[in-house]
């Protein structure tokens, strides 16, 4: 008897969690279902399933968004920003953790300080400076901006990971004749792999979804990212929901795929980053 009522209670809690999750998911349901409806059907029957699948919404969205171009632009920016961030942040984190001079302590807090500076406080002069050195409307400019903005958080994640690596490993490498550079690239870099994956996924989600920075720096049409292209489309087709919803779904799909491939790293990375802070 006790066993039965116990499992009944757990079933109730499980059901509650499940229903809550359904409520959380419902916005996705609305967007996806309606993206396949004609405009008239979407207005009269928003909650139901589509009668006929209007796949042409997606074909129109593909063209309106200039999807291949926007996708390519976003991908290039994300890849190069990630590469740069991983290289500069892991090197700096290694040195700052292993060489705790007074100077390095100050530098470390300087990097951490940047995490409270709102982007709005630097964006106006940054745009001005980019204008001086011809970085406006270039991918190089955007990548540099992401590297500067992301270096603090990435460095923080790497340093929390490097602290846990036993020093003895490096010492034996030095005894075997490894230079300090060799120690880093041959011993430390391979050990950093799990954290590198986490950093890669977290920074990719951020850069892929970022809107304000590409809007400010990339103003020419051919340079639009998925986010800025989506935004400018919405300005034009505000109420044309059949097209707009398909645009939204097409913007969502790549990050969703990335997330489902790497969700363990995302969730672990957020938990680690927060707990060690």
């Amino acid at each position, binding site marked *: 008897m006790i066993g039965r009522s116990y499992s009944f209670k757990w079933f109730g*809690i499980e059901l509650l969690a499940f229903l809550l999750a359904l409520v959380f998911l419902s*916005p996705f349901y609305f967007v996806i279902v309606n993206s396949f409806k004609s405009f008239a059907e979407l207005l009269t029957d928003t909650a139901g399933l589509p009668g006929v699948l209007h796949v042409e919404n997606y074909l129109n969205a593909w063209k309106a968004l200039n999807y291949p171009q926007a996708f390519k632009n976003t991908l290039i920016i994300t890849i190069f920003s990630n590469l740069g961030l991983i290289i500069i942040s892991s090197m700096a984190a290694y040195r700052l953790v292993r060489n705790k001079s007074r100077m390095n302590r100050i*530098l470390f807090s300087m990097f951490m300080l*940047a995490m409270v500076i709102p982007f709005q406080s630097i964006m106006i002069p940054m745009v001005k400076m980019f204008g001086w050195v011809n970085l406006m409307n270039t991918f190089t400019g955007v990548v540099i901006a992401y590297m500067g903005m992301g270096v603090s958080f990435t460095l923080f994640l790497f340093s929390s990971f490097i602290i846990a690596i036993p020093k003895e490993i490096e010492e034996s490498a030095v005894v075997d004749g490894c230079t300090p550079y060799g120690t880093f690239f041959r011993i430390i870099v391979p050990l950093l792999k799990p954290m590198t994956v986490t950093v890669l996924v977290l920074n990719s989600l951020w850069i892929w979804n970022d809107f304000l920075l590409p809007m*400010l720096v990339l103003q020419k049409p051919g340079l639009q990212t998925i986010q800025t292209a989506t935004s400018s489309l919405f300005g034009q087709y505000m109420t044309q*929901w059949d097209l707009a919803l398909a645009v939204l779904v097409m913007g969502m799909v790549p990050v969703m795929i990335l997330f489902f491939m790497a969700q363990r790293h995302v969730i672990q990375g957020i938990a680690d980053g927060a707990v060690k802070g």
Partner: protein
Amino acid sequence: MQQAFFIGPAILFYSIVIAIPFFFGIYYSMTSWDGVSGNAVWVGLNNFSTIFLKDPEFGQSFWFTTRFTLTAVILNNVIGFALAYLLSLPLKSRSAIRTIFFLPNVLGGLVLGFIWQFILVQGFPGIGKLTNLSFFTLPWLGTEATAYWALIIVSVWQGAGYLMVIYIAGLANVPKDLIEASVIDGAGKWQILKNIIIPLIMPTVTVCLFISISWTFKMFDLNYSLTSGGPYGSTESVAMNIYNEAFGNNRYGLGTAKALIFFVAVTFITLIQVKLTKSREVEM
């Protein structure tokens, strides 16, 4: 030499993007720079007196942002913690359900805003017709009060799942034997939560408050795509006010002055919060 090799590149990018623009910003905040012409005329503290004395909209956006942050942060943390508590129980489907609650975080604020625009303008009236619940037929983006709550709903829908992940990590660190001991001593569920779990996870609370405050206070993308500050500027966040001032009105000098005030406010608020909650942390 090694110092320059390892830290040099990080410092270089940090300087170009964060440090130098930040100091330039302090200079520009005291000019009447319009962003177009090359010359920025020095005006001293004029911009600041303009902001404080003649710009009620900035004050209004600050007041909106403060109220919004307060409500959103409390709801986000309470719901995030409740979800974490629920999903720390040994449920069979808990890892799948955790993923679902986290899912909105995979999308950017811009897309979230457009998604919810559709749901509030089209989806809610649709549900309202089916269920006859007046909650769903409110003019969600049409009035000041409802637009405020629309933003809150979306920010909780997104933020709670993120905080949940951090709270789950915090809850996992609470020693099980401590809870077992208190059960033996006859403590109820509520007493365990209040007297053992919450004091022990205060470091997590500090982090979650820090993250949610700085996020919500800096809100831009969601604001831009969901309400654009409307109706009648009533939901214009500070970040959006700064953006509009600089790039909409071409008053870059005034915009940077606002951005500087914004920076001071963000730093001040987060420092106070961290100090306050840190003082409540206990050692295990």
